[in-house]
């Protein structure tokens, strides 16, 4: 009856704890909110490091709309992201199903399995660079050993993005595994017992019980992977630097070059704004799909 009053009391009770978060909020504002504001400010200026700043309104954005290199980089980013989301989600879910079983050495093998995502990206990228080498790399040795023709990997425009996706899949499949495994661990056991009594087979149980139970986690993993793949930087930068030519130049790499190779701070800030909007938009679409999936 007086649930409103109780709720009110609860809120004010909770509010007393907010000061605990103030220092962190202050710091966050300083290192996160300030940069956003300043980025917006810079994006409407023509500003090259070392020369004067000039207000140009939306000219940077207008220029972006007709910048072929930027438009090309959007294509590269979406191509890379599509592959670097789909493959880890499939493999990571399969791995989670495997690691959810009990078997000898499970803890140790699971630790080994997550090593790639904990390893330093630069180190990982260096090793992959050496493995990709067309003449001396171990990957081409393995290809020819099983009778396949050698590939040019990251040294040819047509194969560079799939090759970088290979590294990304190797690197981040463990994260998907961990998220889905979290869902599997939390799943109740009763549905399986009653399904067994009803005579369901293993595939039916997976399809009708397990999959719906872990679906929210698969969607969560997809959202996180999408954001991370859009932002991917370290391995691409170290392995190809956007090359050969501009064949693997993603938005993030183009952004880096504009800012820290060409020092076009104003123009780079405009790229940041567009990039950020793209990331938020894709994340929102995925979250909306998640809501829809929940209700149906």
């Amino acid at each position, binding site marked *: 009856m007086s649930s409103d009053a109780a709720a009110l009391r609860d809120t004010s009770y909770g509010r007393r704890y907010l000061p605990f978060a103030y220092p962190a909020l202050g*710091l966050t504002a300083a290192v996160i909110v300030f940069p956003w504001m300043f980025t917006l400010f810079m994006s409407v200026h023509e500003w090259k490091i070392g020369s004067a700043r000039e207000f140009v309104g939306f000219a940077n954005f207008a220029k972006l709309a007709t910048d072929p290199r930027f438009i090309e980089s959007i294509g590269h980013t979406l191509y890379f992201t599509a592959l670097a989301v789909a493959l880890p989600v499939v493999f990571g879910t399969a791995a989670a199903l495997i690691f959810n079983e009990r078997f000898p050495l499970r803890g140790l093998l699971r630790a080994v399995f997550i090593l790639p995502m*904990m390893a330093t990206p630069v*180190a990982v990228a260096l090793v992959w660079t050496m493995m990709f080498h067309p003449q001396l790399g171990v990957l081409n040795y393995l290809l020819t050993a099983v009778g396949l023709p050698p590939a040019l990997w990251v040294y040819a425009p047509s194969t560079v993005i799939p090759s970088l996706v290979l590294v990304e899949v190797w690197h981040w499949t463990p994260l998907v595994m*961990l998220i889905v*495994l*979290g869902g599997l661990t939390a799943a109740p056991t009763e549905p399986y017992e009653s399904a067994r009594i009803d005579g369901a087979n293993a595939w039916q149980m997976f399809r009708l019980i397990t999959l719906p139970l872990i679906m929210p986690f698969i969607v969560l993993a997809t959202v996180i992977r999408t954001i991370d793949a859009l*932002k991917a930087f370290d391995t691409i930068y*170290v392995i190809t630097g956007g090359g050969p030519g501009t064949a693997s130049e993603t938005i993030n790499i183009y952004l880096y070059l504009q800012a820290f190779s060409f020092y076009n701070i104003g123009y780079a800030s405009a790229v940041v704004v567009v990039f950020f909007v793209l990331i938020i938009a894709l994340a929102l679409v995925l979250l909306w799909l998640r809501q829809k999936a929940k209700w149906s």
Partner: protein
Amino acid sequence: MAAAESEMVMSDAGPGLGWRIRETAWRFAFGVAVFVIVSPAITVMLWMLSLSFKNDVDNMAFPPVFVPSPPTLANFEAVFENNNLGQNLINSIIVTGLATLVALVVGVPAGYGIAKAQAHKIAIGILIARITPALSYLIPLYMLFQLIGLTGTVWPIVITHLVITLPIVIYIMIGFFETLPPDLEEAALIDGCTLWQAFRHVAMPLARPGIVVGTVLSIIFSWNNFIFGAVLGGRTTRTLPVAVYNMLTFEQVAWGPLAAAALLVTAPVLILTLFIQKEIVGGLTAGGVKGG
């Protein structure tokens, strides 16, 4: 767990020959599956080991030499001789240590406050920090540091690393404090403790496992970070990953020292992961966090 056990139970009524064959086949197939999913991770790591302990001739051989014979430490000696890795190591320790320390000092109370106040909006705000690309902080902060004359020191790198460490610590601590039963703190409050005392002497000791996970993940992802150090680090303030990247540009053909350097940077993180894998898995499953 349930799926496999139930499959075995259902596949046949009694423990006859057919059942045993199926059981063996299932075990074999499962073993193969485990091998297939674990092998890419272990193979690349072993290849890094192999490259770093082989001499230059073997590293350039085709077909490749897989096992170093005899293993040599020459690559590691070369790395230390030609580079100022000691300085880079100190820089990395300062940056990671300070960024993690500050994140703990302000992040643990913040996680507590947000969990207690059920301030979901603040939690979402922290998630947005996780979504934002690192470069979008970097450009404005780079300009700011130039303006106030901090470039060339280690401070800009420490400050930017807070973008990595703070969200990790806060996010993991929210998760931990939310699962903590409130009874003990409430008893402390009734006994006349202030909110801070109840946090400091009751809730925080109970959350020690969470603090350990948050610390380790914060250390790992700060240690691994490349881009902040690459842009903000000068010759004397480079962190280890940046120093290793620079070796790539200067010693493109010397694979042995490159692999040795890569191994040196990432070995502490890999060893840490193997040692406390259970806690790390728990922390990551709960949060789905990742730095950078």
